[in-house]
Every structure is written in structure tokens, then in C-alpha cells.
């Protein structure tokens, strides 16, 4: 192998998502312009045709996610990017992707809501929507970067998880992250792991598109390869044919849950800082995590034993690992740019002796280190 020269770039979070997706092997992008995510569509429109990939600007976000799912079933690694209003429009078809176990990536560059809300301002108020956005029972995967470098690596990870588990994966970033420029080194080929979906190795006539396997993940053939399977959003049997048989219904829904629940350790990932001797912890994700690290350092200068926990996977949160981290913690602050969403999950997961506090901001501004520091002092 020849040594490649390291490529250092000054990138916006949105651009880093584009390069991350290309690194992961994205072949298809469909989207509809919306602030603050548009640079992702623009980057894809520039880069994909140059590389023989496919780009289409659809007529709306419903069509965008539909085209993405179509392309994914035709064998592509496919993605879309949007923000609040578009994410809401996509929900029905995201549910279709869960049900049909179609791998795809949806980036939501969060802005303030509800409704048109704050197109150019930051929020993390789609945290719960990323988990429960579409109707019905299902298990969602959502990941959240906090820097340009992580926008790159988490987009790669989102593709890997979606291919590995045949499920849509949501990347939650935000307006500030999307537009902020940072220096980053582009990982070289081979540096980050890139996962492709498992393909069937059985004769065409044995293939079952939704086969119950020991791992609960079914190998996936593409359209046009001779397998000729049926895909339906109706609750279906292992061959994809609609069913109304109670056992088959339950088996299908359990499959959607178990193929993710069984692999929580593989899916979840945390960064912790100064947690070794901490009594107080700050939990935050995305842009807020940056302020949290800063606040923790400031608090440490004041001899406050505080640490920080940043989950990279928001859904599923990884409750067993998180509970372990919280065992020595007396007080935990959940800092979010919303009226309190992730905090509900932390309350559910935290050990009984850990008191949970919510720190919120929802005025379209970033969370500052001082705000977090003040809260740390307040709860002491």
C-alpha cells in the first residue's frame, strides 16, 4: 500500500456529512432544499454525478425518502438530508423503511420548531421525533455528532449501522454544527470501517427477503438480481406477503425490535471525560456536548468533581452502560436545546440514588459553558 498524503480540509458540518457519506460509499441521494441542511444536497449534486453516483432533487421530502427507499431496494447505499418540516413530511415513509427493513440514512439538521419555527437557528427539539416520529411499534437508531470531524465519522457509522441491521438510521445534527467550519483531516481509505449489507448466498428460489435468521437480520438481495421478492409496508410474512396471522404479525414486530436490541453494545457508543472521580455528571449530545466539556473543565478548576458523558448513539441510548456510568454519580444534569426530551430517557435509566436535573434552552441560541457551569453550581 502506498502512503497517501493526509488531506486536511476546512469543512462545515454539512460538508463533512457529504464527505462522510461518500467515504461510506453512498451511491444515491434524493432531497428537497431546506435550511439549514441544503448544503448537503448541494454537495451531493456536485459530487455524485462526478463519481457515477445518482442525485435527484425531488418534488418534496415525501418523494425524496420514497426515492431513497426505492434506490436502496435496487441495491444502492442511499440517503437524504433535511430539517424539521421535511423530517415531519418523511415520517410515513421512514416507517415504511422500518417495516420493509430497507437500509438508508436520513440526516436531520435540526432547527427550531414547531412548524416553520426557526429556519436559521439551532435546536435539538427533534430528539424524540427521531425515536417515535412515525406511527407504530419499531426500534429506531439515531446517531449524533458534535463536530465536523464527527459529522464525517458518524455519517459513516450511520451507513454502517443501516447496512448491518437493514434499517433506516437517522443522523441528528443541528444548525450550528451544520454551518460551523472546522479544520479536519479526511480519513484515508481503510482508516474507518465501511460495512456493506449481507447478500444472500442461497439459490434464487430459496431466498426469503425477510427470513428469520439466528441474528434476526436477513440477508438482502436487490431488484434485478433474479430473486424477485415482494416488498410491502403491510405487515408481512418472511416472503414479504401480507399476513393477518397473529403469530406471523408478532414474529415480524419482534424481529424489528430484536435485530437492534440484541446488538446494543455494538450500536451504542459514548465519550466520557473526567468521569473517574466524579459525583456530578453532565449528559449532552451534539453541539451542547462541546459546551459541556468546556463547562466541566471550568468546574474542575473550581475543584468540583464533575464529569461529562456524550452519547454518540441517541437511540437506542444503551441503558445498561449508561446506568453503570451513573452508579457513582449523585447528581446528573441533562443539557439539551429543547424543553426536555432526552432527560425523560435518562430519568428512566438512572440508578435510584442519582438525582436527575434538566437544563434547557429553547430560544434559538447555543448552550454556553457558563450556563452549564451555573447549573452545576446550583445543583451541588
Amino acid at each position, binding site marked *: 500500500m502506498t502512503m497517501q498524503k493526509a488531506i486536511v480540509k476546512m469543512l462545515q458540518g454539512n460538508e463533512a456529512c457529504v464527505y462522510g457519506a461518500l467515504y461510506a460509499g453512498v*451511491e*444515491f441521494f*434524493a432531497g428537497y432544499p431546506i435550511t439549514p441542511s441544503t448544503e448537503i444536497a448541494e454537495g451531493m449534486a456536485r459530487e455524485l*454525478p*462526478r463519481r*457515477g453516483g*445518482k442525485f*435527484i432533487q*425531488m*418534488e*418534496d421530502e*415525501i*418523494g*425524496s425518502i*420514497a*426515492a*431513497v*427507499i*426505492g*434506490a*436502496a*431496494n*435496487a*441495491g*444502492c447505499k*442511499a440517503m437524504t438530508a433535511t430539517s424539521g418540516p421535511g423530517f415531519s413530511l418523511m415520517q*410515513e*415513509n421512514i416507517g*415504511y423503511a422500518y417495516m420493509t427493513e430497507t437500509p438508508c440514512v436520513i440526516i436531520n439538521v435540526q432547527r427550531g420548531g414547531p412548524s416553520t419555527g426557526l429556519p436559521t437557528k439551532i435546536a435539538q427539539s427533534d430528539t424524540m421525533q427521531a425515536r417515535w416520529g412515525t406511527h407504530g411499534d419499531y426500534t429506531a437508531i439515531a446517531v449524533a455528532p458534535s463536530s465536523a470531524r464527527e459529522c464525517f465519522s458518524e455519517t459513516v457509522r450511520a451507513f454502517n449501522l443501516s447496512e448491518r441491521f437493514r434499517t433506516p438510521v437517522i443522523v441528528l445534527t443541528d444548525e450550528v454544527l451544520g454551518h460551523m467550519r472546522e479544520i479536519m483531516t479526511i480519513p484515508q481509505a481503510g482508516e474507518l470501517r465501511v460495512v456493506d449489507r449481507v447478500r444472500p448466498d442461497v439459490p434464487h428460489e430459496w431466498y426469503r427477503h425477510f427470513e428469520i435468521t439466528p441474528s434476526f437480520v436477513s440477508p438482502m438481495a*436487490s*431488484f*434485478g*438480481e*433474479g*430473486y*424477485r*421478492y*415482494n*416488498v*410491502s*409496508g*403491510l405487515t408481512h410474512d418472511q*416472503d414479504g*406477503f*401480507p399476513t393477518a396471522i397473529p403469530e406471523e404479525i408478532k414474529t415480524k414486530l419482534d424481529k424489528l425490535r430484536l435485530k437492534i436490541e440484541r446488538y446494543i453494545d455494538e450500536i451504542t457508543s459514548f465519550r466520557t471525560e473526567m468521569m473517574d472521580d466524579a459525583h456530578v455528571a453532565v449528559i449532552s449530545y451534539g453541539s451542547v456536548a462541546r459546551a459541556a466539556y468546556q463547562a466541566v473543565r471550568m468546574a474542575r478548576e473550581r475543584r468540583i468533581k464533575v464529569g461529562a458523558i456524550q452519547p454518540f448513539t441517541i437511540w437506542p441510548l444503551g441503558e445498561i452502560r449508561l446506568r453503570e456510568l451513573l452508579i457513582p454519580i449523585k447528581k446528573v444534569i441533562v443539557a439539551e436545546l429543547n424543553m426536555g426530551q432526552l432527560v425523560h430517557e435518562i430519568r428512566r435509566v438512572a440508578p435510584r440514588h442519582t438525582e436527575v436535573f434538566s437544563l434547557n434552552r429553547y430560544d434559538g441560541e447555543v448552550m454556553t459553558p457558563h450556563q452549564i457551569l451555573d447549573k452545576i453550581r446550583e445543583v451541588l
Partner: protein
Amino acid sequence: MTHQPLQSEVTHHYLRPKKKFPNVWCAGCGNGIVMGALIRAIDKLGLDKNDVAVISGIGCSSRMPVYLDFNTLHTTHGRALAFATGVKIAKPQMKVIVITGDGDALAIGGNHFIHACRRNIDITAVLINNKIYGMTGGQFAPTTPGGMIATTAPHGNYEKQFDVVKLAIGAGASYVARGTVYHVTQLEKLITGGLRKKGFALIDAFSNCHTYYGRMNREGDAVAMIRWFKKHAMPVEAAARIPPEKLKDKFITGLIHETDATEFCEEYHWLVDRLSGKEAEK
């Protein structure tokens, strides 16, 4: 002498062996007639089953792909054309067919419909037009004629209707035809023509929903409704020779519009070629 397969043998060759029949359709529903015409058109063209994708939305009509032995995608209500757009762009070598209802394509899916026409993407859309929402039990559709009864128009429909043929032509489709479930040979030919056409092809297939539309509007059973199509259809060639006032209670059938325009995937392919050429020159 080679054995000439029976019509039913041809049909069975394209039906899914694993899928248990009977189907979900009412006895006498036109959906099955359209399915037969589609199968024969595919058979005539000698298409490889592996290269055919059939994509539908939600509705009685949209249940069709489930029974067909192709690559089939039964999607969400109104979105079949958007899903199909993704499949076609990803695999341009595949024949992409969309089966949709009049509610599916023109109400909830109207936006995707006009944009699929506008892009002139190489998809053949067969719109089974029964002038009603069959699956949900007989509510009025954007195609329900004025005055007719539907469960949500119990006093008679007071809305205006879409003429899907005009809509498709206006939006840029390159092949626009109308057939009926009475004129099965013609319907098969129109679908064949649509499949041959490189570009967006729409076949508006008038069909009967005797269970709801027929019953509520006293148009009789399946046979009576299909006879109505026979009586009121006017081939486009004949219509050209007849004064307009004589066409009042008729509807036009046949290949109504055909043009040659560049197709979406082709244009995209040229772009990719152009960009790679540029890159080589540098």
C-alpha cells in the same frame, strides 16, 4: 409444430407460485382484467421477469404487484411514482411499471404524478381509473363525475374532476393513452406501446368498481358497467371525424398523445459522461 400456450398458461407463468389465491378483489372487479392485459403485454415483449419491477401505492388496484412474479414494491398511498423514480434511476436497465389507482395517483399522489410526467422518466404507469376510492369503501375521488353518489358525497358530488389524460399531456408525459376493461385487446396494445416507449407513459385504464360506484349509482353489476364502457368509448381516430356535439356522452380511447423527448435517466447518463470526459481532459 410448437405448442401454442393457452392464454391461462401465459398468465400463470407470471403469477407467484407461493402466493395463495384467491386475491383480495371482489369477483368481477376490473383490476384482474388490467392485470391480464399487463401480463400479456409483458409476455409479448418477451421481457425477462428479473428485469421487470412493478411498483404500486395503496388501494385495491395497488394490490396487484403482490400477485406478480417480478421485483415488486407495494409502497405507501400515493407515493408509488416517487419510489419508482428511485428504482429507475438506481437501475435504468430495468423496466419499471407503476400500478396506481385514480385516488392514489391524482389525489394524494398528484404532486409525484405531475413531476414524473415532467421529468419524462422512463416509467410505464397504468392508472386503474374506477372513479372512486374502492379500498376504503366508496368515497369520491378527483375523478368522480359531478352529481354522482359516494359515501362522502351522499347528496351528489359537487366537485370538479381531473381529466388525467389532459393533465399528463400538460405535465410533459411522452405517451398518453386511454383504454377500458371492456376493450382488453386494445388495452394490452396500449400497455405494450407504453412499455416500448422510452419516456413517461401513462395508460389511463377505465375500470369498474361495481361494489361501490356501481351499487351507489345504480349502474348495475360488473357486466353492466363493463358494457357501459363498450357503449361510450370512442376511438381517438373516429372522434377526429365526428362533430364535437356528438361526442358529448363519449370518452376518447386509444393512443391520444405521443412525442419524442429526451428521457430523464438518459440525460443524467450524458451528464455523468460529460463530467468524466472533462475530468480526463484535465
